[in-house]
């Protein structure tokens, strides 16, 4: 079964490759993976879509929790949740085709965000299934390019994934260390994750 895992991890160099490496080393599936820093720049949030039997997903969750850089994680499938993915599709739009694509985009509540004589770029957001359905609906010969962000997910209601009261990192009393600490936090950026 398909599972969406939401993971909070340290925004450290190498954290992402620990997760990716775990999946390849243990032959677990990754359908998609997205990651970006959160409102707390020391923390990144990853949404990982995987599939497997209950036992395998249990192992995946345990193995992820074992990684030192993983702070917390939840399996969104344990409760009601919302998933969204963004897709950009470049389609050939010529003659009669132009109208047909436009109609489909309207049906799927997408937007055409770039137009040339012969092409459209369509933007579509939704659950992955909806994006799949759009691709199926469009005549395959018209599709020039598809870009998908992978899934972002969040639990509904009061269930929330956050670090909670962050445990203060043990602080060295020296000035140098304090400023270094600040510098480190400032330096946190997505590229850093790789």
């Amino acid at each position, binding site marked *: 079964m398909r599972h969406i895992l939401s993971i909070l*991890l*340290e925004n450290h*160099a190498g954290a992402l490759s620990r997760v990716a*490496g775990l999946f390849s080393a243990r032959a677990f599936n990754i359908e998609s993976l997205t990651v970006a820093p959160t409102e707390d720049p020391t923390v990144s949030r990853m949404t990982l879509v995987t599939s497997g039997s209950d*036992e395998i997903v249990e192992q995946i969750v345990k193995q992820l929790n074992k990684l030192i850089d993983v702070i*917390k994680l939840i399996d969104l499938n344990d409760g009601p949740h919302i998933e969204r993915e963004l897709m950009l599709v470049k389609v050939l739009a010529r003659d009669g085709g132009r109208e047909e694509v436009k109609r489909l985009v309207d049906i799927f509540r997408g937007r055409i965000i770039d137009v040339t004589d012969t092409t459209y770029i369509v933007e579509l957001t939704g659950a992955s299934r909806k994006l799949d359905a759009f691709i199926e609906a469009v005549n395959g010969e018209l599709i020039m390019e598809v870009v998908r962000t992978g899934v972002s997910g969040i639990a509904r209601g009061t269930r929330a994934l956050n670090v909670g009261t962050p445990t203060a990192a043990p602080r*060295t009393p020296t000035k140098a260390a304090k400023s270094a600490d600040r510098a480190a936090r400032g330096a946190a950026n997505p590229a850093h994750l790789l």
Partner: protein
Amino acid sequence: MRGAEIFVQALKDEGVEYLFGYPGGAVLHIYDELFKQDAVRHILVRHEQGATHAADGYARATGKPGVVLVTSGPGATNCVTGIATAYMDSIPMVVFTGQVPTHLIGNDAFQEVDAIGITRPCVKHNFLVEKVEDLAPTIRKAFYIAASGRPGPVVVDIPKDVTADSCEYYYPKNIEIRSYKPTGKGHPGQIRKAIQLIFEAKKPMVYTGGGIVLDDAAEDLKEFGHLTGFPITNTLMGLGGYPATDPQFVGMLGMHGTYEANMAMHHCDVLIAIGARFDDRVTGNLEKFCPYAKIVHVDVDPSSISKNVPVDVPIVGSAREVLREMNQLLREADFKPRDKSNPWWRQITEWSALDCLRYDRTTDVIKPQYVIEELYAVTRGDAYITSDVGQHQMWAAQYYKFDKPRRWINSGGLGTMGFGLPAALGVQLGFPDSIVCCVTGEASLVMCIQELSTALQYNLPVKIINLNNRYMGMVRQWQEFFYDRRYSHSYMDALPDFVKLAEAFGHVGMRIEHARDVQPALKEATGMKDRLVMMDFLTDQTENVYPMIASGKGHHEMHLAPGNPQPQPSDRELA
């Protein structure tokens, strides 16, 4: 303070006695600081793999983390085998690798490798120290992570400029890592469920592994054994976790386990697994594993639980804590220990009567099993035994009766040939007055033979028990059984003269060719308190390790040594 000084000071604050290492460009600042002090003793190995195994042996025997320092590039890559060895057996170890200066990282600089990337899959965690301010806290974190929870190796990669830069020194005593909170105590509700099963069990079996040794839980396991009266088996990694001479001990289990241990596994109705991980060499065919048992599994690592075998009562917690809680409950409930007159124990005694470790004691050809039995007798069971990998390892495990934990030191998970000799050096450093023996084979021994020099330099009087069968015996055994005796590249041709080899390295060498000489030679060698002795035993070339469970078979489908009545594999559930 300069980074290099911080490094050395941090090791002192961490209480590090020995640093196993090998110098090179990237770590020269550190080596210069090491030169100026003698609180941390540096042990110069002859190959970085040796450093990791020596540190690993030290850690296994003493319980303290092993510490390694090597240079960048080839220094780091030479450590990978040793790091993976420690990782597979959950051994606490901190490996410091030098790295090219930060501004050169990623430039294919001289002696640059991505040590973090290369070691990532075989460490508990690793760190690249990006600036000198991070050095001391990172070292503290590395030791904390290596030694807590399920232990394991941690690599700290230190660029050369970090060791030259300066900052104020502060070594944090306690460290808090928000993403790392190892569990200690088990869940009380789960523990009560386990106790319930203990009460209900008619055919109980206790199966324990390296977790007992690592967590210093042997005393608690002994008490658990005596409170319950249950039969107990140990994995290869768990030997010594329960006294082998205790009447409730039924021997090792698994591929080369005893008949009684494996049969009891197959037929038990309640299995209590503690600090063991259901490794494939232990379980045999999973489809046939413990078909009648309800399983309780205690492990500090949740990912070990239900990984290979689904369990009925999972308990996440340290082996020692959970055993103490269970012992307490058993005492409170006044549990009557099972005595040997009940039908289950009578059945086990019947299986034991088969004497599956029997071998021919009448010949004057040296039987490898005989050497181990004599070694056990001569050292009164009180030696530290390291081993390499192969038949000799299995014989040492089967015939040396370990009554104490941390005495049996071998690479169980990775199965690393070359481990035994350097590991023995680490053990001897930890226990300078004890007898430390390395049981090895002629193929394994030469894999790290260069460490004989280290032994001389630091005067480490290890006794090497080379069971020399002129074959990669374990490979030959499989080829005999499964490849129609086509001994493809498993004969050790062009072997060195091990006596002269020992002498060339400045040690004592002995060759023993007859069974009658085995005991006197062992006495003589162990009597040489301050010399390393290489004992080259020319053993029976084609002896095989029995019992054996071939792959795909269950615990009840063992092969016994030829000449034994082969028991009919019986799969019916015992009454």
